[in-house]
């Protein structure tokens, strides 16, 4: 059995028929991480002792419950380092939280542990989830398993690379403006951002509280549905968590796209979209049409102001959220003669350049004299962005489009901040409108993966998975493996 390329479903079958055990899967995962992390830097911390304890419990549970145990039971998972894990260092990719050991576990991770999944370690990410290339981490950049001179995308670059490299079966990331979907596209894996409010944000190091969502990285859409089903649902500890019931996504997953109306937003195929990506995604759309979907051209005129809206709202919210890093209750502290000086020095020493940039930008947008012109204005434009989507969803069931305007780019290529922000121009509006979005592989340009994005109305997460599954199963892109995964497997 080639464990480097197995899905959750295949692991679940092998665990139940005795082909393998949780300890064996874990041992192999740890060995694959050791073989690849020098080159990829996808992992920041491993928790082998705890993981082996979890593997023992998983083995007992499989013995007792057999096929009624969750399919995630005994399967290795990696967690982005912005999700708190009790007893395991959680840094958010920042020096300011170096050595921080959370006293509790985030709800999303706890639900995976309760299902029996084995938390192998914490993955690298852009500092405080700010970035689109995983080059902003205080712990070094992550490399793309398809071409290690290139970025994996960000901010959940470590989680995407960990799955694409065949080191863990699945992982968790967070998505504020595209930070799951964009690295999924660049690393050739499946990545999903659920509807805002579907997955608890309790225990997630907050970036922008009205935009952040936790979601899975997997090798297949079915795996993604399984993980989403396990982590989604109301959490009384998160007051933004939706109380509406989560229907099992596996029930509707195989319904296909026959008769569905799929909107193609024309503004997502304009200037700035790489011609190779455009051609690849257009082929995917033709494939969906051949499966019985009706493609309908739609217009989202607010697309061109989405980036500006986001880069006022997100820094504003982050400047508020990151005020807690003052060196008093946790995090780096550099005591000075005055309290104010202590705050300023601790934060200056602890935060990296992109974090400081966004803090300054957010502070400006919220400051007296500028609040109305920037923050309040952006909030109004946000209403228009959400209304744009609501309007098109009266006519179509879901939207299909590219995830990223480009394939993975070389490290160091986008040193100008604004050129980096442009990476998320096709993902950001989805966060502003609180919608579910998913990226899955749809081809390659010069050997580098391209992602197809599926977007649905609020709470239509199961429909998004259904559309993605239908496309995936009619192609073989999900069976392609990165050179790193293939090398480890052989």
């Amino acid at each position, binding site marked *: 059995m080639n464990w480097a390329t197995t899905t959750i479903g295949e692991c679940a079958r092998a665990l139940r028929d005795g082909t393998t055990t949780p300890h064996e899967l874990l041992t192999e995962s740890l060995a694959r991480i050791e073989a690849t992390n020098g080159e990829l830097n996808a992992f920041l911390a491993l928790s082998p002792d705890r993981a082996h304890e979890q593997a023992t419990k998983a083995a007992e549970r499989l013995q007792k419950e057999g096929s009624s145990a969750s399919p995630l039971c005994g399967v290795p998972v990696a967690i982005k380092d912005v999700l708190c894990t009790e007893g395991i260092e959680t840094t958010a990719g920042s020096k300011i939280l170096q050595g921080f050991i959370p006293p509790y576990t985030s709800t999303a991770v706890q639900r995976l542990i309760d299902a029996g999944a084995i938390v192998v370690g914490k993955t690298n990410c852009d500092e405080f989830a700010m970035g689109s290339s995983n080059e902003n981490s205080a712990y070094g950049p992550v490399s793309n398993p398809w071409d290690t001179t290139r970025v994996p995308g960000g901010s959940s670059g470590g989680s995407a690379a960990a799955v694409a490299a065949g080191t863990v079966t699945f992982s968790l990331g967070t998505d504020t403006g595209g930070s799951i979907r964009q690295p999924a596209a660049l690393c050739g894996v499946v990545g999903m951002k659920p509807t805002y409010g579907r997955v608890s944000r309790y225990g997630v190091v907050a970036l922008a509280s*009205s935009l952040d969502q936790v979601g899975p990285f997997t090798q297949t859409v079915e795996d993604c549905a399984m993980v989403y089903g396990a982590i989604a649902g109301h959490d009384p500890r998160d007051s933004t968590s939706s109380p509406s019931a989560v229907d099992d996504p596996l029930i509707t997953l195989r319904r296909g796209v026959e008769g569905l109306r799929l909107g193609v937003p024309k503004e997502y195929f304009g200037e700035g979209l790489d011609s190779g990506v455009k051609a690849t995604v257009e082929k995917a759309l033709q494939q969906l049409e051949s499966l019985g979907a009706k493609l309908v051209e739609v217009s989202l005129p607010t697309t061109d102001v989405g980036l500006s809206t986001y880069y*006022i709202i997100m820094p504003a919210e982050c400047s508020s959220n990151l005020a807690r890093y*003052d060196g008093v209750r946790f995090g780096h502290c550099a005591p000075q003669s005055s*309290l104010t000086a202590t705050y300023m*020095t601790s934060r200056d020493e602890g935060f990296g350049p992109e974090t400081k940039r966004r803090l300054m930008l957010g502070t400006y947008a919220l*400051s007296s004299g500028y609040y109305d012109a920037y923050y309040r204005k952006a909030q109004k*434009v946000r209403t228009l962005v959400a209304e744009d989507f609501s309007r098109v969803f009266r006519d179509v069931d879901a939207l299909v489009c590219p995830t990223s305007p480009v394939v993975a780019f070389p490290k160091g290529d986008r040193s100008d901040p604004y050129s980096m922000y442009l990476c998320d121009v096709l993902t950001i509006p989805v966060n502003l409108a*609180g919608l579910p979005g998913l990226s899955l592989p749809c081809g390659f340009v010069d050997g580098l993966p391209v992602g197809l994005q599926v977007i649905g109305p*609020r709470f239509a997460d199961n429909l998004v998975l259904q559309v993605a599954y239908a496309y995936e199963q009619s192609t073989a892109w999900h069976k392609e493996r990165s050179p790193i995964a293939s090398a480890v497997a052989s």
Partner: protein
Amino acid sequence: MTSAMTLSPADIDHLAMLARLGLTSNERGIIASQLDNILDHVSTLSKVDTAHVDETARVTELVDVWRDDVMAPSFLVDVALRNAPQRDGQYFKVGAIQE
């Protein structure tokens, strides 16, 4: 909101103080020009007509989420203080606020 806004050194100092960031003078210069560039881009929002549009703080159907005032287990003091850079018995230790 106007385009081609230039942040003065005094503006940067003010923002750094509000954000409690002790930036070096080199950092201040770099950030000033980067912010000018970003603000120039985001100022396109001023052209959008929002005359009769309400603000969206968060896309949610929820309003006034309450819970019953029921006691439940929480952190023990020792656990809550575990990551404190400075502690004094059962307390976080912090510098005096009055200077």
